[in-house]
Protein backbone atom coordinates (compact mmCIF):
# COMPACT_ATOMS: atom_id res chain seq x y z
CA UNK A 1 0.00 0.00 0.00
CA UNK A 2 1.00 3.61 -0.37
CA UNK A 3 2.00 6.02 2.34
CA UNK A 4 -0.80 8.23 3.64
CA UNK A 5 0.68 11.50 2.39
CA UNK A 6 0.26 10.47 -1.23
CA UNK A 7 -3.20 9.02 -0.65
CA UNK A 8 -6.41 10.98 -0.84
CA UNK A 9 -9.67 9.26 0.02
CA UNK A 10 -12.79 11.12 -1.12
CA UNK A 11 -16.41 10.21 -0.50
CA UNK A 12 -18.96 11.44 -3.02
CA UNK A 13 -22.49 11.93 -1.69
CA UNK A 14 -24.86 11.87 -4.63
CA UNK A 15 -27.94 12.65 -2.57
CA UNK A 16 -31.46 14.03 -2.85
CA UNK A 17 -31.92 17.25 -0.88
CA UNK A 18 -35.29 18.96 -0.45
CA UNK A 19 -35.56 22.67 -1.21
CA UNK A 20 -36.18 24.55 2.02
CA UNK A 21 -35.61 21.58 4.33
CA UNK A 22 -32.46 22.94 5.96
CA UNK A 23 -32.44 20.62 9.00
CA UNK A 24 -33.28 17.62 6.80
CA UNK A 25 -30.53 18.40 4.29
CA UNK A 26 -28.02 18.99 7.08
CA UNK A 27 -29.01 15.63 8.59
CA UNK A 28 -28.34 13.94 5.25
CA UNK A 29 -24.91 15.60 5.11
CA UNK A 30 -24.21 14.42 8.66
CA UNK A 31 -25.22 10.86 7.78
CA UNK A 32 -23.05 10.87 4.68
CA UNK A 33 -20.12 12.11 6.75
CA UNK A 34 -20.52 9.19 9.13
CA UNK A 35 -20.30 6.90 6.09
CA UNK A 36 -17.26 8.80 4.84
CA UNK A 37 -15.62 8.41 8.24
CA UNK A 38 -16.33 4.68 8.20
CA UNK A 39 -14.69 4.51 4.77
CA UNK A 40 -11.64 6.30 6.13
CA UNK A 41 -12.16 9.30 3.86
CA UNK A 42 -10.34 12.61 4.25
CA UNK A 43 -13.10 14.49 2.46
CA UNK A 44 -16.83 14.25 1.91
CA UNK A 45 -18.25 16.14 -1.09
CA UNK A 46 -21.91 17.16 -1.40
CA UNK A 47 -23.71 18.65 -4.42
CA UNK A 48 -24.24 22.33 -5.22
CA UNK A 49 -26.34 24.33 -2.73
CA UNK A 50 -27.03 21.14 -0.83
CA UNK A 51 -28.05 22.86 2.41
CA UNK A 52 -30.78 24.96 0.75
CA UNK A 53 -31.69 22.41 -1.91
CA UNK A 54 -31.40 23.30 -5.57
CA UNK A 55 -32.72 25.40 -7.20
CA UNK A 56 -34.03 27.48 -4.29
CA UNK A 57 -35.22 30.26 -6.64
CA UNK A 58 -36.46 33.35 -4.78
CA UNK A 59 -36.69 31.51 -1.48
CA UNK A 60 -32.98 32.23 -1.23
CA UNK A 61 -33.73 35.96 -1.06
CA UNK A 62 -35.52 35.50 2.26
CA UNK A 63 -33.27 36.70 5.10
CA UNK A 64 -34.73 34.12 7.50
CA UNK A 65 -33.82 31.35 5.03
CA UNK A 66 -30.32 32.69 4.44
CA UNK A 67 -29.75 32.80 8.20
CA UNK A 68 -31.06 29.25 8.64
CA UNK A 69 -28.72 27.93 5.94
CA UNK A 70 -25.73 29.66 7.44
CA UNK A 71 -26.55 28.43 10.93
CA UNK A 72 -26.77 24.86 9.60
CA UNK A 73 -23.39 25.15 7.87
CA UNK A 74 -21.87 26.56 11.06
CA UNK A 75 -23.28 23.68 13.07
CA UNK A 76 -21.81 21.16 10.62
CA UNK A 77 -18.49 23.03 10.77
CA UNK A 78 -18.37 22.74 14.55
CA UNK A 79 -19.00 19.02 14.27
CA UNK A 80 -15.87 18.57 12.17
CA UNK A 81 -13.87 19.26 15.34
CA UNK A 82 -14.20 15.51 15.92
CA UNK A 83 -11.21 14.96 13.64
CA UNK A 84 -13.26 13.06 11.06
CA UNK A 85 -13.50 13.82 7.35
CA UNK A 86 -13.57 17.38 6.05
CA UNK A 87 -16.72 18.36 4.18
CA UNK A 88 -17.30 20.38 1.02
CA UNK A 89 -20.90 21.54 1.16
CA UNK A 90 -22.88 23.98 -0.96
CA UNK A 91 -24.98 26.70 0.60
CA UNK A 92 -26.21 30.21 -0.11
CA UNK A 93 -23.88 32.62 1.67
CA UNK A 94 -24.13 36.31 2.44
CA UNK A 95 -20.83 38.15 2.44
CA UNK A 96 -20.42 41.91 2.46
CA UNK A 97 -24.12 42.38 1.78
CA UNK A 98 -24.05 40.18 -1.31
CA UNK A 99 -25.55 36.74 -1.73
CA UNK A 100 -23.36 34.05 -3.25
CA UNK A 101 -23.81 30.52 -4.47
CA UNK A 102 -21.09 29.13 -2.23
CA UNK A 103 -19.25 25.98 -1.39
CA UNK A 104 -17.73 25.78 2.07
CA UNK A 105 -14.91 23.59 3.26
CA UNK A 106 -15.62 22.50 6.81
CA UNK A 107 -12.68 21.04 8.65
CA UNK A 108 -11.26 20.86 12.16
CA UNK A 109 -14.26 22.62 13.67
CA UNK A 110 -14.07 25.62 11.35
CA UNK A 111 -15.22 26.98 8.04
CA UNK A 112 -11.74 26.51 6.69
CA UNK A 113 -12.43 28.01 3.28
CA UNK A 114 -15.30 29.21 1.18
CA UNK A 115 -15.56 29.54 -2.56
CA UNK A 116 -18.18 31.38 -4.58
CA UNK A 117 -19.59 30.45 -7.93
CA UNK A 118 -18.17 32.80 -10.54
CA UNK A 119 -20.12 32.07 -13.71
CA UNK A 120 -23.84 32.24 -13.04
CA UNK A 121 -26.06 30.49 -15.60
CA UNK A 122 -28.94 32.61 -16.82
CA UNK A 123 -30.44 30.68 -19.67
CA UNK A 124 -32.92 27.85 -20.10
CA UNK A 125 -34.22 26.87 -16.68
CA UNK A 126 -31.50 28.85 -14.88
CA UNK A 127 -31.81 32.39 -13.60
CA UNK A 128 -29.04 32.55 -11.05
CA UNK A 129 -28.00 36.10 -11.92
CA UNK A 130 -31.37 37.09 -10.55
CA UNK A 131 -30.53 35.97 -7.02
CA UNK A 132 -26.77 35.54 -6.72
CA UNK A 133 -23.80 37.85 -7.03
CA UNK A 134 -20.90 36.73 -9.18
CA UNK A 135 -18.04 35.49 -7.05
CA UNK A 136 -14.40 36.41 -7.46
CA UNK A 137 -12.12 33.96 -9.21
CA UNK A 138 -10.13 32.28 -6.46
CA UNK A 139 -7.37 29.77 -6.11
CA UNK A 140 -7.57 26.16 -4.98
CA UNK A 141 -8.27 25.13 -1.41
CA UNK A 142 -5.77 23.05 0.49
CA UNK A 143 -7.50 20.03 1.95
CA UNK A 144 -5.29 17.77 4.06
CA UNK A 145 -2.30 18.71 2.01
CA UNK A 146 -3.96 18.34 -1.39
CA UNK A 147 -4.69 21.45 -3.43
CA UNK A 148 -8.27 21.11 -4.60
CA UNK A 149 -9.94 23.34 -7.18
CA UNK A 150 -13.65 23.80 -6.56
CA UNK A 151 -15.31 25.21 -9.66
CA UNK A 152 -19.05 25.19 -9.02
CA UNK A 153 -21.18 23.70 -11.83
CA UNK A 154 -21.31 26.41 -14.50
CA UNK A 155 -17.72 27.35 -13.71
CA UNK A 156 -16.71 24.34 -15.80
CA UNK A 157 -19.30 24.77 -18.53
CA UNK A 158 -18.07 27.56 -20.71
CA UNK A 159 -15.05 28.60 -22.63
CA UNK A 160 -13.67 31.94 -21.57
CA UNK A 161 -15.60 34.86 -23.08
CA UNK A 162 -16.53 38.43 -22.30
CA UNK A 163 -19.05 37.03 -19.88
CA UNK A 164 -17.31 33.93 -18.61
CA UNK A 165 -14.18 33.67 -16.52
CA UNK A 166 -12.07 30.64 -17.20
CA UNK A 167 -12.18 29.38 -13.64
CA UNK A 168 -10.64 26.01 -14.39
CA UNK A 169 -7.64 27.53 -16.15
CA UNK A 170 -7.10 29.83 -13.20
CA UNK A 171 -7.27 26.91 -10.76
CA UNK A 172 -4.83 24.89 -12.83
CA UNK A 173 -2.41 27.80 -13.08
CA UNK A 174 -2.53 28.40 -9.35
CA UNK A 175 -1.61 24.86 -8.48
CA UNK A 176 -4.77 22.79 -8.24
CA UNK A 177 -4.05 19.07 -8.22
CA UNK A 178 -7.61 17.90 -8.69
CA UNK A 179 -10.94 19.50 -9.66
CA UNK A 180 -13.98 18.76 -7.55
CA UNK A 181 -17.14 20.13 -9.17
CA UNK A 182 -20.38 20.24 -7.18
CA UNK A 183 -23.36 20.41 -9.54
CA UNK A 184 -27.09 20.91 -9.65
CA UNK A 185 -27.56 19.69 -13.18
CA UNK A 186 -31.10 18.84 -14.25
CA UNK A 187 -31.77 15.87 -16.45
CA UNK A 188 -32.54 16.20 -20.12
CA UNK A 189 -32.17 13.61 -22.84
CA UNK A 190 -28.57 13.48 -23.98
CA UNK A 191 -27.39 15.51 -20.99
CA UNK A 192 -24.94 12.84 -19.84
CA UNK A 193 -22.97 13.08 -23.07
CA UNK A 194 -22.94 16.85 -22.82
CA UNK A 195 -21.67 16.80 -19.23
CA UNK A 196 -19.02 14.29 -20.11
CA UNK A 197 -17.76 16.17 -23.14
CA UNK A 198 -17.63 19.46 -21.22
CA UNK A 199 -15.76 17.76 -18.41
CA UNK A 200 -13.38 15.97 -20.76
CA UNK A 201 -12.61 19.35 -22.32
CA UNK A 202 -11.72 20.80 -18.91
CA UNK A 203 -9.60 17.78 -18.05
CA UNK A 204 -7.80 18.04 -21.38
CA UNK A 205 -7.11 21.75 -20.90
CA UNK A 206 -6.05 21.53 -17.29
CA UNK A 207 -4.51 18.05 -17.28
CA UNK A 208 -6.23 17.56 -13.94
CA UNK A 209 -8.51 14.77 -12.81
CA UNK A 210 -12.10 15.86 -12.27
CA UNK A 211 -14.88 14.74 -9.95
CA UNK A 212 -18.32 15.66 -11.26
CA UNK A 213 -20.88 15.36 -8.47
CA UNK A 214 -24.57 15.92 -9.19
CA UNK A 215 -27.65 15.67 -6.99
CA UNK A 216 -30.62 13.39 -7.52
CA UNK A 217 -34.34 13.92 -7.06
CA UNK A 218 -37.11 16.12 -8.36
CA UNK A 219 -37.74 19.80 -7.75
CA UNK A 220 -40.92 21.21 -9.27
CA UNK A 221 -40.47 20.80 -13.01
CA UNK A 222 -36.86 19.68 -12.87
CA UNK A 223 -35.51 16.23 -12.24
CA UNK A 224 -31.91 15.61 -11.24
CA UNK A 225 -30.45 12.31 -12.30
CA UNK A 226 -27.19 12.23 -10.39
CA UNK A 227 -25.10 10.09 -12.75
CA UNK A 228 -22.00 11.64 -11.20
CA UNK A 229 -18.69 10.58 -12.64
CA UNK A 230 -14.97 10.82 -12.13
CA UNK A 231 -12.37 11.38 -14.83
CA UNK A 232 -8.70 10.62 -14.48
CA UNK A 233 -6.20 13.16 -15.75
CA UNK A 234 -5.72 10.95 -18.83
CA UNK A 235 -9.48 11.40 -19.55
CA UNK A 236 -10.33 7.82 -18.76
CA UNK A 237 -13.52 7.29 -16.83
CA UNK A 238 -12.52 6.43 -13.29
CA UNK A 239 -15.99 6.00 -11.83
CA UNK A 240 -19.60 6.28 -12.88
CA UNK A 241 -22.27 6.66 -10.21
CA UNK A 242 -25.81 5.41 -10.86
CA UNK A 243 -28.58 7.47 -12.41
CA UNK A 244 -31.73 8.46 -10.51
CA UNK A 245 -30.68 6.98 -7.20
CA UNK A 246 -28.77 8.16 -4.20
CA UNK A 247 -25.26 6.84 -3.89
CA UNK A 248 -22.45 7.35 -1.44
CA UNK A 249 -19.24 6.26 -3.07
CA UNK A 250 -15.72 6.39 -1.70
CA UNK A 251 -12.78 6.68 -4.06
CA UNK A 252 -9.11 6.20 -3.28
CA UNK A 253 -6.66 8.42 -5.10
CA UNK A 254 -2.92 8.15 -5.22
CA UNK A 255 -0.33 10.47 -6.60
CA UNK A 256 1.23 9.08 -9.76
CA UNK A 257 4.78 9.33 -11.00
CA UNK A 258 3.84 11.39 -14.05
CA UNK A 259 4.06 14.67 -12.23
CA UNK A 260 3.36 16.34 -8.95
CA UNK A 261 0.15 17.91 -10.20
CA UNK A 262 -1.64 14.78 -11.10
CA UNK A 263 -3.24 12.54 -8.63
CA UNK A 264 -3.85 9.26 -10.28
CA UNK A 265 -5.29 6.08 -8.97
CA UNK A 266 -5.07 3.15 -8.44
CA UNK A 267 -5.02 3.00 -4.69
CA UNK A 268 -6.00 -0.59 -4.31
CA UNK A 269 -3.00 -2.84 -4.70
CA UNK A 270 -5.14 -5.95 -4.62
CA UNK A 271 -6.81 -5.22 -7.92
CA UNK A 272 -4.21 -2.96 -9.52
CA UNK A 273 -3.57 -5.42 -12.27
CA UNK A 274 -7.15 -5.66 -13.30
CA UNK A 275 -7.64 -1.92 -13.00
CA UNK A 276 -4.65 -1.17 -15.13
CA UNK A 277 -5.81 -3.61 -17.74
CA UNK A 278 -9.29 -2.11 -17.92
CA UNK A 279 -8.23 1.51 -17.77
CA UNK A 280 -10.35 1.73 -14.69
CA UNK A 281 -7.92 2.63 -12.02
CA UNK A 282 -9.83 4.59 -9.36
CA UNK A 283 -11.42 1.96 -7.25
CA UNK A 284 -13.10 1.65 -3.95
CA UNK A 285 -11.31 -0.42 -1.43
CA UNK A 286 -12.77 -2.14 1.55
CA UNK A 287 -11.27 -5.57 1.85
CA UNK A 288 -9.07 -6.73 -1.04
CA UNK A 289 -11.63 -9.38 -1.85
CA UNK A 290 -14.46 -6.85 -1.96
CA UNK A 291 -12.37 -4.58 -4.14
CA UNK A 292 -11.70 -7.30 -6.61
CA UNK A 293 -15.38 -8.17 -6.75
CA UNK A 294 -16.35 -4.56 -7.20
CA UNK A 295 -13.75 -3.90 -9.86
CA UNK A 296 -14.75 -7.01 -11.71
CA UNK A 297 -18.38 -5.94 -11.58
CA UNK A 298 -17.48 -2.49 -12.84
CA UNK A 299 -15.30 -3.90 -15.53
CA UNK A 300 -18.25 -5.93 -16.79
CA UNK A 301 -20.61 -2.95 -16.66
CA UNK A 302 -18.17 -0.29 -17.69
CA UNK A 303 -18.99 3.04 -19.21
CA UNK A 304 -22.52 4.10 -18.48
CA UNK A 305 -23.85 1.23 -16.46
CA UNK A 306 -24.65 1.96 -12.81
CA UNK A 307 -22.12 0.87 -10.25
CA UNK A 308 -22.52 -0.21 -6.67
CA UNK A 309 -21.85 2.31 -3.92
CA UNK A 310 -18.98 1.83 -1.57
CA UNK A 311 -19.16 -0.58 1.31
Amino acid at each position, binding site marked *: MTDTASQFIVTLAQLNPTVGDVPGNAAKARQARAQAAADGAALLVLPELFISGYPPEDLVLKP*AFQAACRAAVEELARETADGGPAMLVGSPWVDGGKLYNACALLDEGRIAAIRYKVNLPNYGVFDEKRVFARGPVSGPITIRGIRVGVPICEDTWMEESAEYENVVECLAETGAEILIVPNGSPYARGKNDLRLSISVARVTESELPLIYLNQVGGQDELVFDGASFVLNADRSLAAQLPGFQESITTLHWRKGEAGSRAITPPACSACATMCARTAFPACCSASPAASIRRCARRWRSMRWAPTASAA
Partner: protein
Amino acid sequence: MAVDALGADRVRGVMLPFRFTAQVSLDDAAKLAAALGIRYEVLPIAQAVNGFEAILSDTFAGLPRDITEENLQARTRGTLLMAISNKTGAMVVTTGNKSEMSVGYATLYGDMNGGFNPIKDIYKTEVFRLSSLRNAWKPEGALGPSGEVIPVNIITRPPTAELRENQTDQDSLPPYDILDGILERLVEREQPLADIVADGFDREVVARIDRLLNIAEYKRRQAAPGVKVTRRNFGRDRRYPITNRFRDAGKPLPEPDHALVSRAGRGSAEGFDV
Protein backbone atom coordinates in the same frame (compact mmCIF):
# COMPACT_ATOMS: atom_id res chain seq x y z
CA MET B 1 -62.24 47.74 -15.19
CA ALA B 2 -63.34 45.63 -18.16
CA VAL B 3 -66.10 48.09 -19.05
CA ASP B 4 -63.79 51.08 -18.65
CA ALA B 5 -61.25 49.40 -20.91
CA LEU B 6 -63.48 47.81 -23.56
CA GLY B 7 -66.88 49.48 -23.34
CA ALA B 8 -70.13 48.09 -22.02
CA ASP B 9 -71.13 46.46 -25.31
CA ARG B 10 -68.11 44.15 -25.14
CA VAL B 11 -68.60 42.97 -21.58
CA ARG B 12 -71.16 40.59 -20.16
CA GLY B 13 -71.95 39.65 -16.60
CA VAL B 14 -73.06 36.18 -15.63
CA MET B 15 -74.58 35.49 -12.23
CA LEU B 16 -74.38 31.83 -11.20
CA PRO B 17 -76.48 31.48 -8.05
CA PHE B 18 -76.80 28.42 -5.85
CA ARG B 19 -78.84 27.96 -2.70
CA PHE B 20 -76.24 29.78 -0.57
CA THR B 21 -76.41 32.87 -2.78
CA ALA B 22 -78.19 35.57 -0.76
CA GLN B 23 -80.97 37.61 -2.36
CA VAL B 24 -78.89 40.70 -1.63
CA SER B 25 -76.11 39.28 -3.81
CA LEU B 26 -78.52 38.83 -6.70
CA ASP B 27 -79.88 42.33 -6.18
CA ASP B 28 -76.40 43.88 -6.01
CA ALA B 29 -75.25 42.01 -9.10
CA ALA B 30 -78.29 43.15 -11.09
CA LYS B 31 -77.75 46.73 -9.92
CA LEU B 32 -74.09 46.61 -10.89
CA ALA B 33 -74.88 45.26 -14.36
CA ALA B 34 -77.55 47.92 -14.86
CA ALA B 35 -75.23 50.72 -13.68
CA LEU B 36 -72.54 49.56 -16.09
CA GLY B 37 -75.02 48.99 -18.90
CA ILE B 38 -73.73 45.50 -19.64
CA ARG B 39 -75.54 42.42 -20.81
CA TYR B 40 -76.47 40.37 -17.76
CA GLU B 41 -77.83 36.89 -17.33
CA VAL B 42 -78.60 34.63 -14.41
CA LEU B 43 -77.80 30.94 -14.74
CA PRO B 44 -78.70 28.97 -11.60
CA ILE B 45 -76.23 26.13 -11.07
CA ALA B 46 -78.22 23.78 -8.83
CA GLN B 47 -78.92 21.25 -11.58
CA ALA B 48 -75.25 20.92 -12.44
CA VAL B 49 -74.04 20.81 -8.81
CA ASN B 50 -76.66 18.20 -7.94
CA GLY B 51 -75.65 16.24 -11.05
CA PHE B 52 -72.00 16.20 -9.99
CA GLU B 53 -72.95 15.17 -6.47
CA ALA B 54 -75.17 12.37 -7.81
CA ILE B 55 -72.33 11.08 -10.00
CA LEU B 56 -69.97 11.16 -7.00
CA SER B 57 -72.40 9.72 -4.46
CA ASP B 58 -70.98 6.18 -4.55
CA THR B 59 -67.39 7.40 -4.65
CA PHE B 60 -68.04 9.70 -1.67
CA ALA B 61 -70.20 7.18 0.25
CA GLY B 62 -69.47 7.33 3.98
CA LEU B 63 -67.38 10.49 3.66
CA PRO B 64 -68.53 13.67 5.43
CA ARG B 65 -69.53 16.75 3.46
CA ASP B 66 -66.69 19.25 3.58
CA ILE B 67 -64.89 21.88 1.53
CA THR B 68 -65.05 19.52 -1.46
CA GLU B 69 -68.74 20.23 -1.93
CA GLU B 70 -68.07 23.96 -1.52
CA ASN B 71 -65.41 23.89 -4.20
CA LEU B 72 -67.69 21.87 -6.44
CA GLN B 73 -69.91 24.95 -6.63
CA ALA B 74 -66.98 27.12 -7.67
CA ARG B 75 -65.88 24.51 -10.21
CA THR B 76 -69.37 24.27 -11.65
CA ARG B 77 -69.34 28.03 -12.15
CA GLY B 78 -65.89 27.84 -13.69
CA THR B 79 -67.02 25.16 -16.12
CA LEU B 80 -70.06 27.17 -17.20
CA LEU B 81 -68.03 30.36 -17.66
CA MET B 82 -65.46 28.52 -19.76
CA ALA B 83 -68.26 27.04 -21.87
CA ILE B 84 -69.58 30.54 -22.57
CA SER B 85 -66.06 31.69 -23.35
CA ASN B 86 -65.53 28.75 -25.65
CA LYS B 87 -68.81 29.28 -27.50
CA THR B 88 -68.64 33.09 -27.84
CA GLY B 89 -64.93 33.79 -27.95
CA ALA B 90 -65.19 36.11 -24.96
CA MET B 91 -62.38 35.79 -22.42
CA VAL B 92 -63.23 35.01 -18.82
CA VAL B 93 -61.88 37.69 -16.52
CA THR B 94 -60.93 36.10 -13.22
CA THR B 95 -61.07 38.07 -10.02
CA GLY B 96 -58.89 36.69 -7.24
CA ASN B 97 -57.26 39.69 -5.58
CA LYS B 98 -53.75 39.60 -4.13
CA SER B 99 -54.95 38.82 -0.61
CA GLU B 100 -56.86 35.80 -1.88
CA MET B 101 -54.11 34.66 -4.26
CA SER B 102 -51.60 34.91 -1.40
CA VAL B 103 -53.39 32.58 0.96
CA GLY B 104 -54.99 30.30 -1.63
CA TYR B 105 -58.48 31.63 -0.99
CA ALA B 106 -59.58 30.74 -4.50
CA THR B 107 -60.66 27.50 -6.11
CA LEU B 108 -58.32 25.99 -8.67
CA TYR B 109 -60.30 25.10 -11.84
CA GLY B 110 -63.17 27.07 -10.31
CA ASP B 111 -63.14 30.81 -9.79
CA MET B 112 -59.46 30.76 -10.80
CA ASN B 113 -60.57 29.93 -14.34
CA GLY B 114 -59.93 32.73 -16.77
CA GLY B 115 -57.52 34.28 -19.19
CA PHE B 116 -56.63 37.43 -17.30
CA ASN B 117 -56.89 38.79 -13.77
CA PRO B 118 -56.80 42.60 -13.63
CA ILE B 119 -56.78 42.75 -9.83
CA LYS B 120 -54.31 39.95 -9.18
CA ASP B 121 -51.73 42.30 -7.68
CA ILE B 122 -54.15 44.43 -5.67
CA TYR B 123 -54.83 43.60 -2.04
CA LYS B 124 -58.44 43.29 -0.93
CA THR B 125 -58.33 46.48 1.13
CA GLU B 126 -57.08 48.28 -1.98
CA VAL B 127 -59.87 46.78 -4.07
CA PHE B 128 -62.36 48.41 -1.67
CA ARG B 129 -60.56 51.75 -1.90
CA LEU B 130 -60.30 51.64 -5.67
CA SER B 131 -64.01 50.78 -5.93
CA SER B 132 -64.91 53.81 -3.85
CA LEU B 133 -62.54 55.92 -5.90
CA ARG B 134 -64.13 54.80 -9.16
CA ASN B 135 -67.56 55.74 -7.80
CA ALA B 136 -66.31 59.26 -7.15
CA TRP B 137 -64.09 59.73 -10.19
CA LYS B 138 -63.78 58.38 -13.70
CA PRO B 139 -60.35 58.16 -15.25
CA GLU B 140 -59.92 60.06 -18.48
CA GLY B 141 -60.62 57.88 -21.48
CA ALA B 142 -62.48 55.25 -19.47
CA LEU B 143 -65.35 53.88 -21.55
CA GLY B 144 -67.68 53.14 -18.62
CA PRO B 145 -70.33 55.49 -17.25
CA SER B 146 -69.66 58.15 -14.62
CA GLY B 147 -71.07 58.18 -11.12
CA GLU B 148 -71.76 55.40 -8.71
CA VAL B 149 -71.19 52.37 -10.94
CA ILE B 150 -70.45 49.98 -8.08
CA PRO B 151 -73.34 49.69 -5.62
CA VAL B 152 -72.05 50.87 -2.24
CA ASN B 153 -73.45 47.75 -0.59
CA ILE B 154 -70.96 45.63 -2.53
CA ILE B 155 -68.15 47.68 -0.97
CA THR B 156 -69.50 47.83 2.57
CA ARG B 157 -70.93 44.33 2.92
CA PRO B 158 -68.71 41.80 4.75
CA PRO B 159 -66.96 39.70 2.09
CA THR B 160 -68.31 36.18 1.63
CA ALA B 161 -67.69 33.33 -0.79
CA GLU B 162 -71.30 32.14 -0.20
CA LEU B 163 -70.32 28.50 -0.47
CA ARG B 164 -72.17 27.52 2.70
CA GLU B 165 -74.80 28.96 5.07
CA ASN B 166 -73.86 32.34 6.63
CA GLN B 167 -70.22 32.06 5.56
CA THR B 168 -67.92 35.08 5.64
CA ASP B 169 -64.28 35.32 4.65
CA GLN B 170 -63.44 36.20 8.24
CA ASP B 171 -64.48 32.70 9.35
CA SER B 172 -61.18 31.40 8.03
CA LEU B 173 -59.06 34.52 7.54
CA PRO B 174 -58.14 37.43 9.81
CA PRO B 175 -59.81 40.78 8.97
CA TYR B 176 -58.48 42.00 5.63
CA ASP B 177 -56.69 45.05 7.03
CA ILE B 178 -54.69 42.74 9.30
CA LEU B 179 -54.22 40.10 6.60
CA ASP B 180 -52.98 42.66 4.09
CA GLY B 181 -50.61 44.16 6.67
CA ILE B 182 -49.07 40.74 7.24
CA LEU B 183 -48.96 39.85 3.54
CA GLU B 184 -47.30 43.09 2.55
CA ARG B 185 -44.54 42.32 5.07
CA LEU B 186 -44.19 38.69 3.98
CA VAL B 187 -44.49 39.03 0.22
CA GLU B 188 -43.02 42.40 -0.57
CA ARG B 189 -40.55 42.93 2.25
CA GLU B 190 -39.57 39.29 2.98
CA GLN B 191 -39.61 40.17 6.67
CA PRO B 192 -38.78 37.46 9.17
CA LEU B 193 -41.78 36.36 11.25
CA ALA B 194 -40.12 37.67 14.39
CA ASP B 195 -40.02 41.18 12.88
CA ILE B 196 -43.69 41.03 11.86
CA VAL B 197 -44.68 39.95 15.36
CA ALA B 198 -42.55 42.82 16.69
CA ASP B 199 -44.68 45.13 14.51
CA GLY B 200 -47.65 44.15 16.67
CA PHE B 201 -49.23 41.25 14.77
CA ASP B 202 -50.36 38.11 16.55
CA ARG B 203 -47.70 35.39 16.40
CA GLU B 204 -50.10 32.54 15.65
CA VAL B 205 -51.93 34.47 12.95
CA VAL B 206 -48.66 35.46 11.28
CA ALA B 207 -47.40 31.86 11.34
CA ARG B 208 -50.68 30.61 9.88
CA ILE B 209 -50.68 33.19 7.08
CA ASP B 210 -47.03 32.39 6.30
CA ARG B 211 -47.94 28.72 6.01
CA LEU B 212 -50.94 29.43 3.77
CA LEU B 213 -48.77 31.66 1.59
CA ASN B 214 -46.23 28.86 1.14
CA ILE B 215 -48.65 26.04 0.43
CA ALA B 216 -50.66 28.07 -2.10
CA GLU B 217 -47.70 28.36 -4.47
CA TYR B 218 -48.93 25.40 -6.53
CA LYS B 219 -52.20 27.21 -7.14
CA ARG B 220 -50.57 30.50 -8.06
CA ARG B 221 -48.32 28.72 -10.54
CA GLN B 222 -51.50 27.74 -12.42
CA ALA B 223 -53.18 31.13 -12.13
CA ALA B 224 -54.06 33.58 -14.90
CA PRO B 225 -51.64 36.47 -15.43
CA GLY B 226 -52.44 39.94 -14.16
CA VAL B 227 -50.99 43.44 -14.08
CA LYS B 228 -48.13 44.14 -11.69
CA VAL B 229 -48.63 47.24 -9.58
CA THR B 230 -46.93 46.46 -6.27
CA ARG B 231 -43.23 46.25 -5.63
CA ARG B 232 -43.43 42.48 -5.88
CA ASN B 233 -46.17 40.64 -7.74
CA PHE B 234 -46.81 36.95 -8.09
CA GLY B 235 -45.57 35.52 -11.35
CA ARG B 236 -42.63 37.49 -12.71
CA ASP B 237 -41.47 38.93 -9.41
CA ARG B 238 -41.87 36.44 -6.64
CA ARG B 239 -40.58 33.17 -8.06
CA TYR B 240 -40.84 30.74 -5.22
CA PRO B 241 -40.38 27.00 -5.50
CA ILE B 242 -43.58 24.97 -5.20
CA THR B 243 -41.71 22.28 -3.34
CA ASN B 244 -40.48 24.26 -0.39
CA ARG B 245 -40.13 22.84 3.07
CA PHE B 246 -38.80 26.01 4.68
CA ARG B 247 -40.89 27.44 7.49
CA ASP B 248 -39.73 30.48 9.43
CA ALA B 249 -40.01 29.36 13.07
CA GLY B 250 -40.51 32.96 14.16
CA LYS B 251 -37.43 33.05 16.37
CA PRO B 252 -34.97 35.93 16.14
CA LEU B 253 -32.55 35.26 13.29
CA PRO B 254 -29.27 33.67 14.41
CA GLU B 255 -26.27 35.98 14.15
CA PRO B 256 -23.52 34.72 11.86
CA ASP B 257 -20.54 33.34 13.75
CA HIS B 258 -17.79 35.21 11.94
CA ALA B 259 -15.12 33.77 14.21
CA LEU B 260 -15.82 30.34 12.72
CA VAL B 261 -14.59 31.38 9.27
CA SER B 262 -10.88 31.13 8.72
CA ARG B 263 -9.45 34.52 7.83
CA ALA B 264 -7.72 33.50 4.67
CA GLY B 265 -10.47 31.12 3.71
CA ARG B 266 -12.72 33.51 1.86
CA GLY B 267 -13.09 33.30 -1.86
CA SER B 268 -11.43 36.47 -3.06
CA ALA B 269 -8.27 37.79 -4.58
CA GLU B 270 -6.71 36.72 -1.30
CA GLY B 271 -7.89 33.21 -2.01
CA PHE B 272 -4.63 32.35 -3.76
CA ASP B 273 -2.77 30.84 -0.85
CA VAL B 274 -0.02 29.39 -3.01
